[in-house]
């Protein structure tokens, strides 16, 4: 794929196969989307992305922000009459935050322990040994 070449906004489009798959997940089984219609749909999708991007960008600039954030997109959707999209999008943002948090926490634990992997493994074996002996003692007592 010639992703490295400079692409003008005319060349850049959505992959046809992906769009076709999504269409078939939406339409009822008795209807068929013609190839032309799928291509027309792709054009509309690209227009939509442009519309949202431009509006979000204006909003970000209005807030003197250099980076377009999710909140800017949400405001753009509101302004453009797509308020009914906002709730599902908030869920996506929430999921994304939790995925990010999960990643950070994993790193944090490992770093915070201050031990190497071998040391941690040894520690784990120790704890297992302790637990095993505790079990044996309790088992003995209840018999």
């Amino acid at each position: 794929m010639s992703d490295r070449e400079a692409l003008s906004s005319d060349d850049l489009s959505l992959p046809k196969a992906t769009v076709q798959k999504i269409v078939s997940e939406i339409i009822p089984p008795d209807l068929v989307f013609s190839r032309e219609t799928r291509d027309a749909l792709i054009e509309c999708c690209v227009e939509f992305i442009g519309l949202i991007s431009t509006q979000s960008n204006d909003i970000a600039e209005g807030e003197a922000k250099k980076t377009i954030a999710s909140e800017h997109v949400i405001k753009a959707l509101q302004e453009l009459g797509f308020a009914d999209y906002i709730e599902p999008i908030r869920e996506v943002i929430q999921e994304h935050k939790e995925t990010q948090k999960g990643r950070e926490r994993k790193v944090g634990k490992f770093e915070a322990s201050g031990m190497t992997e071998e040391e941690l493994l040894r520690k784990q074996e120790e704890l297992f040994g302790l637990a095993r002996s505790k079990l044996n003692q309790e088992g003995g007592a209840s018999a």
Partner: protein
Amino acid sequence: MDESDEYVPPTSNQLQQPLPIIKTRFPVARIKKIMQADDDIGKVAQATPLVVAKALELFMISLVQESCNQARMRNAKRVSPAHLKQAVLSTEQFDFLAETVGKYPDAVAVSGNKPEPGTGPGRGRRRKVVD
């Protein structure tokens, strides 16, 4: 010299519930590229292309469903660009697409409905008929 609109768009299209659950994902990197193909667009936060992808999915659901409605209204089994065009023209939310779909043929009129806005040769939505 009647300046009134030739058609009244119905209220903005609400997403038909329940929403279909789409398993296929848009390529998020591609969406980011499309966004940034516009020179005015600078940096985007990490979550932003994800959010736009979701908006795009909802948009597609809405447009595809309405196109299907237009096909059904005409007893068609194949959803054609004309149906998609009609879906755009009859949905206020999709006004921004009016120019994009202009090149596609108009759909046939549906009996029993309001007359198709702007159908027929040489009549566009914005042109006024001069008597």
